[in-house]
């Protein structure tokens, strides 16, 4: 209660201090609020707004005005939605989105209109690879990062011969490619890459195939319903006891409950874990729980950091009129004090961040250690 009272008082005082700056900044939030990714879009929005709230409702002294669009995770509507925010609503900065296909279209609009874009989730390698641009930033990760980190871990644990399974779409393929790169560099061999069409979840034939191939370990990328089903099937087929399963963190984020125990003990890699002990994370989690009556997740962190990145840029303006180039310049060299641990941005504007090794224990992805310190995406194909 004490903390809450202090928070209210602090929140009431901060605007007084910054009140002299009359400039506004228009933020266009283009995120999924319906459909499969609705909860992710909401978590990102919550995180973003939480940071703005902590700053007394302002970023770098600028009052924040939101224009919000539900992108429905539908790539066919993405260009229109993003253009609407840029041209009709005149937003200064676009923030979005979850689905990589939609984000690719947003990046195109941002490049064409030279609008500042901050991507708070979509991990397609292209966004900070061939499609990178001075005005495009990412507060999340590239598909390559967690998978690459896992490649090293799996090799270190003495596995030589691995089978990979994922959906045949770009994020899955990029994850497998990242894993393979690190794993084979460390002397391992990917014996077979198994793919099935997205969002097909009939894994049983693959499990039989894996059992007859008898690899040392299996690496997968799956998320959501597919992740739950794969892990349960893997367990039910008796493979969990004999062939260790590894994945990038999306396998067990938000899915542990539904796995009903089959996920226990799984090792995954991601740029966030449930029990980081840094003070920033503890404050963030407490604030989030108070504001939204639930626990934050990696998506909320990415939204929070998108706001932090924007603030760093705006701070450089010192209350002057919005100047995109100055904002970009300040953001590029920013050191973001994130709940995931501090990170900087690569030349391609992707976080250079620690990737954690986590283990499923009960309902949490418990921190086991750091798989890769300050891992930078290679950003192949980025010319800027």
């Amino acid at each position: 209660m004490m903390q809450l009272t202090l928070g209210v008082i602090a929140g009431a005082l901060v605007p007084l201090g910054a009140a002299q700056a009359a400039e506004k900044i228009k933020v266009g939030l283009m995120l999924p609020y319906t459909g499969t990714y609705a909860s992710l879009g909401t978590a990102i929005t919550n995180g973003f707004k939480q940071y703005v709230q902590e700053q007394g409702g302002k970023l770098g002294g600028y009052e924040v005005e939101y224009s919000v669009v539900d992108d429905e995770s539908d790539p066919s509507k993405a260009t229109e939605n993003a253009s609407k925010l840029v041209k009709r609503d005149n937003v200064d900065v676009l923030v979005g989105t979850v689905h990589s296909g939609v984000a690719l279209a947003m990046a195109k609009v941002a490049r064409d209109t030279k609008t500042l874009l901050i991507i708070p989730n979509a991990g397609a390698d292209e966004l900070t690879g061939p499609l990178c641009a001075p005005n495009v930033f990412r507060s999340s990760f590239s598909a390559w990062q967690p998978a690459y980190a896992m490649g090293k871990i799996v090799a270190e644990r003495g596995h030589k011969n691995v089978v990979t399974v994922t959906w045949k779409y770009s994020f899955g393929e990029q994850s497998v490619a990242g894993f393979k790169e690190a794993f084979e560099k460390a002397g391992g061999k990917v014996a077979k890459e198994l793919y099935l069409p997205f969002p097909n979840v009939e894994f049983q034939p693959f499990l039989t195939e894996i059992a007859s191939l008898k690899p040392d370990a299996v690496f997968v990328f799956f998320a959501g319903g597919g992740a739950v089903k794969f892990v349960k099937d893997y367990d039910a087929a008796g493979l969990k006891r004999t062939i260790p399963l590894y994945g990038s963190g999306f396998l067990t984020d938000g899915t542990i409950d539904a796995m009903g125990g089959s996920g226990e003990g799984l090792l995954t890699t991601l740029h966030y874990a449930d029990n980081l002990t840094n003070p920033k994370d503890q404050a963030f989690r407490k604030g989030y729980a108070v504001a939204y009556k639930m626990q934050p997740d990696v998506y909320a962190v990415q939204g929070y950091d998108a706001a932090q990145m924007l603030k760093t840029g705006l701070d450089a303006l010192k209350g002057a009129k919005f100047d995109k180039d100055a904002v970009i310049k300040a953001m590029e060299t920013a050191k973001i004090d994130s709940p995931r641990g501090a990170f900087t941005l690569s030349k391609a504007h992707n976080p250079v961040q620690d990737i954690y090794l986590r283990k499923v224990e009960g309902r949490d992805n418990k921190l086991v250690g750091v798989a890769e310190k300050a891992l930078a995406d290679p950003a192949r194909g980025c010319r800027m």
Partner: protein
Amino acid sequence: MDFVSFLIQVLNSLQYGLLLFLVASGLTLVFGIMGIINLAHGSFYMVGAYLAFALTSMTGNLMLAIALGLPLAFVFGAILEWALFSHLYKRDHLEQVLLTYGLILIFEELRSLAVGDDVHGVTIPELFSASIPLSDNLSYPVYRLVISVVCLALAGGLYWLIQKTRLGMMIRAGSHDRDMVKALGIDINLLYRTVFALGVALAALAGMLAAPISSVYPGMGSSVLIISFVIVVIGGVGSVWGALVAALVIGFADTFGKVLLPDLAGLMVYLVMAVVLLWRPEGIFKKG
């Protein structure tokens, strides 16, 4: 492929095919007898899975949940037929497609409002939670065998219902000539309502049975819908027997396609459909 792997892949194929049959049989009944293209059929599968999730969390037992959920699904189907589908019999296919597509959106939205967009799991009943070891590192889950057995029993039951009972006779007659059946003094509206509700119940049952192994998640009905239409078309519209054979063909094609021709895995089912339709444009079992 060694013998044990082959055997397990055969079991996998059968189980997958039989579960698809359960969904497709309802679709083909409604399509073949009432002439309705029902795009919302996959939603009934989803409704079943969510019913299983909700009722299992309430009762703590999947079998009890199915026992409760099945009549619920049947009543739900009957109400739906009364309120919406009964107005579609005389309309053309375009209007049917529009209405049933709209229903998909409505069901997804209602699901989102009622239970949210999270992924849920359903626990396999204690009784069937074991696995049978078949080789040193592979076992076959008992629950999947149970699914196969239940589906086979239902296929037999459907055959008996349609071929040997008075209701089945009326169903068969109704599919040929609606007006004649009416003229004979049979309540054709009640007959159609029963068939539709039966179709909904079958799809929901498939969803309930699949819930523990497939988990329960938004949009789960759509992939099942597409594959079910493939089965209905291959099997011959309206033929339950054809749906069974076609579902098994698809089960085997998908399973062995994934293992033997992994690069073509996504295409395999559609290749089979193309070949079958070139050979028999009306499906394997054309309705006589």
